[in-house]
């Protein structure tokens, strides 16, 4: 081979290369983690907005004494609160005169459901077929009837069913549910399941997941248990995609289906307890959580006396420190500490709390001295490659066993570099949107540091200012090289940088920016107003909505400015605004909500 010198050279060379490569991998890992943090903080900030919207509506309900014109709008928004008897609703939801045409090639259901019905259903969805409206309504009606009879807290025992499988958030990811069934087997009298909420929103097959879960629940009512998640809520659905999905897939009857689902969601049980020892619920607990009180509540009533307790169960997150504080990040529920876990578990003689609600990279995570377990079943939640999903198997010994997976086989074949790249691009795009939305505030903050008015600030000040304005708690210094590409001697031309951010060229800059910031809220309100789901709202409705929202935000907007804006948005010049076009102007079409368009799709399933 070589002499001693060559051997030592080779050794040195190898050492160098290894040192270099490990550094490269570490940088990638850091970027992957940052990307994660970006998605998570933006998601939670969005939820915060959502709760603020709720509070806005609550505020309107309690305090508003509107002038005539606004009174109509508000009662319009709140007409959902009309009280009808269930039997009248059953008549409204009647499916009997909806015929199934011969051309329909999807699954046919008969009631009571049989095993082969449900197997057919799963198979059909696997093959991207859609269930006919008639069967959808029938299935949902039966589910509603069953759910109304269930208690707030399901009590389950392993002596009947031996092993129980627990799944976390699915969020419309049908491929993950199918993967779980493939690996673990479908529900049956021998195979019990608990599905811990958040079945819908974000993913594109939310309705299919619901139909499968309800079908199994009807088939095996003692073996399939569903807990409500914070996304089983019609207002959340307006924002996060489920409403859009249903209206897109069921153009004629979507509205009816959504209305029925609204009722069904409110009747979903709040928790499941196994062997009186393991508590399973979607979000978590607070220091006031008392299962005896919750068991008595009227869970389906919007303003039940235990409303706050229920919100806590669906929205809370654990924290490492002792105590219990309001969850300001999400805007609802609380953060609870290990001492609260201890207290509540002891109060009810429990040994473990299983919850979901938070995406975890490995699909599951323990905390609070292994007394709290988070389980999340939607893999690739933020982006392809972002995380694995997992489910739990629990036997009579009540020791959890985990099975992890990741849908999308090709993910595993991507190199670390490739999967980080895709996800990161996506996260940075979302982050730039956030930055753009706060342009004016950022400008003020930068100018504060630029006391000599040179147009330049240091990167250090850039990082501090951005955090002060956006408050996302992100590692801006770590992210800097991805967001700021042109600097000179460690200084940044901030106006140039801000100019490069925007997606559209705004005319009336600050009004557009504000609208952009509020776009999710706006869309939600628009869709509530658009009661016949036509996708159109009138100028007047647009004007009133914006006026209400801006007064709530304590902003001054002249009627003229609003009208100008409305006219410029009316792309068709027909006096009404197409919501989709409006949102499109902000390039809001989220890739996860792109419904598949089948080329030769004949509408036989409506």
């Amino acid at each position, binding site marked *: 081979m070589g002499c001693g010198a060559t051997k030592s050279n080779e050794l040195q060379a*190898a050492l160098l290369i290894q040192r270099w490569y*490990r*550094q490269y991998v570490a940088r990638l890992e850091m970027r992957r983690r940052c990307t994660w943090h970006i998605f998570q903080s933006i998601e939670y900030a969005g939820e915060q907005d959502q709760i603020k919207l709720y509070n806005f509506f609550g505020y309107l309900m309690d305090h508003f004494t509107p002038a005539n014109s606004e009174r109509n709008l508000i009662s319009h928004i709140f007409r959902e609160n009309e009280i009808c008897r269930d039997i009248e609703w059953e008549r409204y939801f009647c499916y009997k005169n909806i015929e199934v045409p011969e051309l329909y090639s999807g699954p046919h259901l008969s009631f009571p459901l049989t095993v082969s019905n449900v197997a057919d259903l799963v198979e059909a969805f696997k093959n991207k077929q859609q269930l006919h409206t008639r069967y959808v309504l029938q299935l949902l009606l039966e589910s509603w009837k069953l759910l109304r009879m269930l208690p707030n807290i399901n009590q389950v025992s392993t002596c009947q069913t031996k092993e129980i499988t627990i799944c976390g958030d699915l969020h419309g990811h049908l491929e993950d549910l199918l993967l779980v069934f493939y690996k673990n087997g479908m529900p049956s009298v021998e195979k019990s399941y608990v599905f811990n909420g958040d079945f819908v929103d974000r993913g594109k097959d939310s309705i299919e997941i619901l139909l499968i879960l309800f079908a199994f629940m009807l088939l095996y009512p003692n073996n399939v248990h569903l807990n409500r998640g914070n996304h089983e809520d019609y207002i959340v659905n307006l924002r996060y995609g489920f409403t859009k999905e249903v209206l897109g897939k069921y153009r004629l009857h979507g509205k009816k289906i959504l209305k029925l689902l609204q009722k069904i969601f409110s009747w979903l049980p709040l928790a499941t307890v196994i062997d009186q020892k393991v508590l399973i619920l979607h979000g978590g607990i607070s220091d006031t959580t008392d299962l005896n009180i919750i068991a008595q509540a009227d869970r389906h009533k919007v303003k039940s006396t235990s409303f706050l307790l229920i919100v806590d169960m669906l929205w809370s997150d654990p924290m490492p420190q002792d105590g219990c504080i309001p969850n300001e990040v999400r805007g609802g529920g609380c953060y609870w500490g290990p001492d609260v876990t201890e207290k509540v578990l002891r109060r009810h003689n429990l040994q473990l709390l299983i919850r979901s609600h938070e995406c975890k990279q490995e699909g599951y995570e323990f905390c609070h001295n292994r007394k709290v377990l988070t389980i999340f079943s939607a893999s690739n939640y933020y982006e392809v490659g972002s995380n694995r999903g997992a489910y739990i198997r629990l036997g009579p010994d009540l020791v959890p066993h985990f099975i992890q997976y990741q849908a999308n086989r090709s993910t595993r074949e991507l*190199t670390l570099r490739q999967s980080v790249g895709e996800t990161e691009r996506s996260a940075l795009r979302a982050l730039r949107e956030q930055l753009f939305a706060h342009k004016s505030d950022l400008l003020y903050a930068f100018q504060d540091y630029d006391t000599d008015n040179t147009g330049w600030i240091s990167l250090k000040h850039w990082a501090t200012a951005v955090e002060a304005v956006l408050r996302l708690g992100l590692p801006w210094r770590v992210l800097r090289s991805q967001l700021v590409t042109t600097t000179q001697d460690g200084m940044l031309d901030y106006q140039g940088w801000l100019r490069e951010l925007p997606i559209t060229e705004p005319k009336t800059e600050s009004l557009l920016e504000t609208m952009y910031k509020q776009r999710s809220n706006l869309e939600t309100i628009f869709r509530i107003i658009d009661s016949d789901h036509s996708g159109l709202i009138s100028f007047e409705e647009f004007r009133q909505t914006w006026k209400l929202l801006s007064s709530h935000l304590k902003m001054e907007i002249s009627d003229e400015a609003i009208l100008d804006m409305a006219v410029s948005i009316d792309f068709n010049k027909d006096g009404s605004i197409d919501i989709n076009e409006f949102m499109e102007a902000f390039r809001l079409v989220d890739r996860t909500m792109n419904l598949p368009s089948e080329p030769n799709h004949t509408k036989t399933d409506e």
Partner: protein
Amino acid sequence: MADKESAEAVISEIHRRIAEAFNVFDNESSKSVDVREVGTIIRSLGCFPSEAELHEMIAEVEEEEPTGYIRFEKFLPAMTKVLMERKFRPIPKDVLIQAFEVLDQEKKGYLEAEELKKYMTQEGEPFSQDEVEEMLSAALDNKENVIFYKDLVSKMTFEDL
């Protein structure tokens, strides 16, 4: 145009950089991270330590009775020192290429997959199976099944995924 910064300001900015990198891995805001992540944190701050140097540093910041976690309190001063003293400097591109050329005995301009694998898993501070597989999948030119190391170095040094 550059600010005339006091030593204090420089150090406080370094502290903030270190804190940010640390917090990315501190999932529960417990002011401590898993010891297995410390290497990633140090490297992400621009340092190129060898495994031996890394272990030395970890030994420095570990608790007397190792808990498997490194506390920020101990990590911060040690890391500040590393950055101030500019320890574990980056490897210049040409030095790196020279290293590859040493392994490329026949001066072909490329390395066969098996060749690189052998060196990486048998020499120096050996890679694990996973590490070498990952490196190969990123480095391998699929059409020719070899590694053009000059291209590789360019690709991975000025990274814009």
